[in-house]
């Protein structure tokens, strides 16, 4: 393009200028498509003979979060396979879209589902940043958005809106407060050191534990934070050992950090009875990776696959058959319970969309489902049981997180007034409540 075209630049400048002008002029006259009325995004006004609830399900089923993302999808699908996808004359049709854990792709997929597929409800996605982005978009187009896994506190606090419901999990701080309470009381620990992921989810989880522990007389002697990219935890384990506290609380966001921490911790010969992990550090993925050496490991979560319950047993049996013998973890449970809540309100009230669907869910109390008794607060967040769990090996050779203590009706406010709680800054390294 250099030697043969020395005369070109002026022409090009002209062309570019022309194009720019043309673009600006054209913006003045709207294309025909924009003049048409917006299609009704909810689709609720269509009078169909046999009604269909169209569900757009966004989840990272490829990339680095593929396991959790696929589990979230599997849990949802499993429910409809077990119970049939026709409830009270309403057919539930699901379109799954992959966002690879990338917020930009999440948003594009959400727009695709709403505008092209005209779905009635969006479910997912998984990661906090993708979930917050999609929740905001969904509200702007008036489509309900259910969250089976996303744990960001703000989803049902500072960013709460009338169309966003956390259906299948709890906020990070909410799910861990009872862990602190248990450790300081029944657990019998006086001092604790914490090791949490150094970003929002870790800060929130830790804040929950710390407040629960301190409110019940415990003292947190040191707080360590690991970058999410950490693969070798030995340096943190050495610091934990040096801190010399009665117990260790560890919060990770699932994936490799759980097993990697345990490998380092147990490798140094430290005492497993001093550990309390959060939901995700001790999820089924960790249990499968670590095997029998972690029988007896304690953790705190809203999901306990080892709980004696008909609903849980039904899910375990179905998932084992589906996966070739695996036990369902929290992400599967999140997808499954979300489906069961939708089915339950359809059963009672028939075809519902928009705010009606949201209020039907949030105004109900769901007894005896896989989490236990679940209801919702006015910010559309789950209020339900939190379990202190212990890893138990059952006759089928699998490891189960089995409850040893239960805290019923845990909400996200720790006894504070919601308005006041929302005046606080977000949890961070510097602010733990």
């Amino acid at each position: 393009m250099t030697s043969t075209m020395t005369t070109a630049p002026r022409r090009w400048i002209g062309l570019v200028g022309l194009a720019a002008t043309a673009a600006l002029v054209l913006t003045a006259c709207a294309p025909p498509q924009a003049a048409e009325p917006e299609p009704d995004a909810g689709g609720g006004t269509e009078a169909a003979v046999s009604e269909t609830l169209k569900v757009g399900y966004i989840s990272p089923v490829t990339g680095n979060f593929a396991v959790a993302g696929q589990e979230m999808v599997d849990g949802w699908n499993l429910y409809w396979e077990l119970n049939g996808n026709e409830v009270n004359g309403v057919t539930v049709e699901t379109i799954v879209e992959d966002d690879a854990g990338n917020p930009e792709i999440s948003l594009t997929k959400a727009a695709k589902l709403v505008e092209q597929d005209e779905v009635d409800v969006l479910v997912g996605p998984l990661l906090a940043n993708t979930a917050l982005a999609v929740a905001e978009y969904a509200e702007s187009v008036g489509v309900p958005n259910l969250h089976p896994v996303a744990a960001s506190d703000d989803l049902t606090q500072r960013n709460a809106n009338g169309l966003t419901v956390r259906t299948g999990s709890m906020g990070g701080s909410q799910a861990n407060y009872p862990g602190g309470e248990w450790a300081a009381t029944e657990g019998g620990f006086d001092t604790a050191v914490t090791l949490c992921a150094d970003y929002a989810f870790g800060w929130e989880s830790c804040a929950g534990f710390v407040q629960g522990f301190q409110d019940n007389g415990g003292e947190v002697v040191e707080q360590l934070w690991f970058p999410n990219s950490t693969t070798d935890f030995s340096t943190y384990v050495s610091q934990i050992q040096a801190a010399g506290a009665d117990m260790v609380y560890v919060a990770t966001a699932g994936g490799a950090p759980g097993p990697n921490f345990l490998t380092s911790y147990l490798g140094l010969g430290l005492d497993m009875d001093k550990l309390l992990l959060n939901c995700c550090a001790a999820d089924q993925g960790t249990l499968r990776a670590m095997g029998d050496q972690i029988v007896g490991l304690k953790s705190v979560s809203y999901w306990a696959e080892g709980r004696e319950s008909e609903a849980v047993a039904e899910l375990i049996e179905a998932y084992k058959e589906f996966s070739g013998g695996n036990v369902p973890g929290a992400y599967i449970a999140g997808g499954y319970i979300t489906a069961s809540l939708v089915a339950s309100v359809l059963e009672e009230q028939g075809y519902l969309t928009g705010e009606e669907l949201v209020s039907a869910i949030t105004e109900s109390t769901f007894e005896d489902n896989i989490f236990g008794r679940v209801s919702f607060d006015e910010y559309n967040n789950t209020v339900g049981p939190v379990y202190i769990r212990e890893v138990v090996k059952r006759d089928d050779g699998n490891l189960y997180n089995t409850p040893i203590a239960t805290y019923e009706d845990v909400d996200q406010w720790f006894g504070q007034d919601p308005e006041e709680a929302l005046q606080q800054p977000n949890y961070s390294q510097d602010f733990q409540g």
Partner: protein
Amino acid sequence: MNRRMLVNLALLGLLLVVLLALPYFGVSNFVLGLASTILIAAVLASSVNFLGGDGGMVSLGHGAIAAASAYAVGWASRQGLDSMTQVLLALVVTLVVSFLYGLLSMRTSGIYFLMVTLALGMLIYGLAFRLSSVTGGENGISGIAAPGNLHEEWIYYYVVLGIFVITTGALWVVSSSPFGASLRGLRDSESRMRSLGYSVAQYKLSAFMISGTVAGIAGVLAVWHTNFVSPSSAGVERSVLLVVMVILGGIGTLLGPLIGAAVVVLVENVLSSYVDRWPTALGLIFILVILFARAGVAGSVPKVLAKLRGRSPSATPPGDRSSPEGTAVPDRNHNP
């Protein structure tokens, strides 16, 4: 001015007409949004393309520059500042970040340049994660509204298209200027240019500032489009994809970034709806392009056409400023 030039101009004009007419084809907002996403990615990729094609400096940190600019808009919008201030702040942040990048990287070249920019990008990524009081941490900043009626998908599309044309044109003008020629001279032999009395560092720094500014513009466009920014925009995966777009499209070519961006964005957002193992598909596309269209799509098509016409490809085809063989082993530039 020869016939081939005319043909190329005609093709460019046709492309522009198609792009201008797109909203009139009655496509949905989703398709328009997708087209905007592609154009924004193309603006960002063209900044990488300019630096890599003319300067021989392939950057793995441009995603983070765009993200820094997007964060500036996001932070300013959260403070309730108006859109003019948002853009000004974004500009300032972009210039500062680009200057630092340029300053720290100007002594390196080749793979070492790649790694410095990667490291700087990772530092910005780390800051986005850690400085949660400013950046919102992993949750990012949401609810960043575009000013005026830019939230109308078709209006925004035209704005993006206009800016794409302007930035692409501007980069082309720069690269056709004596400055661009000197830059290519630097790319091919730093030592020769130095002995000719050129201030190598100054040229490299200027090139980086130009490229960084374009990346910053893309950052503002992106954040107004998605109304959202989070650390993943600054992540290394994004920057790798940018380089991939550039090479796929054809490094140093005018339309390469657009073609590369279109391929990557469409695979990510559209093909992924139909093909479960789409990352494998993306990988295979890369491999096939490299094997059968070594100079990237835009770099190879003219050659193939020339071959089909039975002409000897002696004249450098337009749009092919750098033969891919020109970017050879990195330490060639380290001769004293």
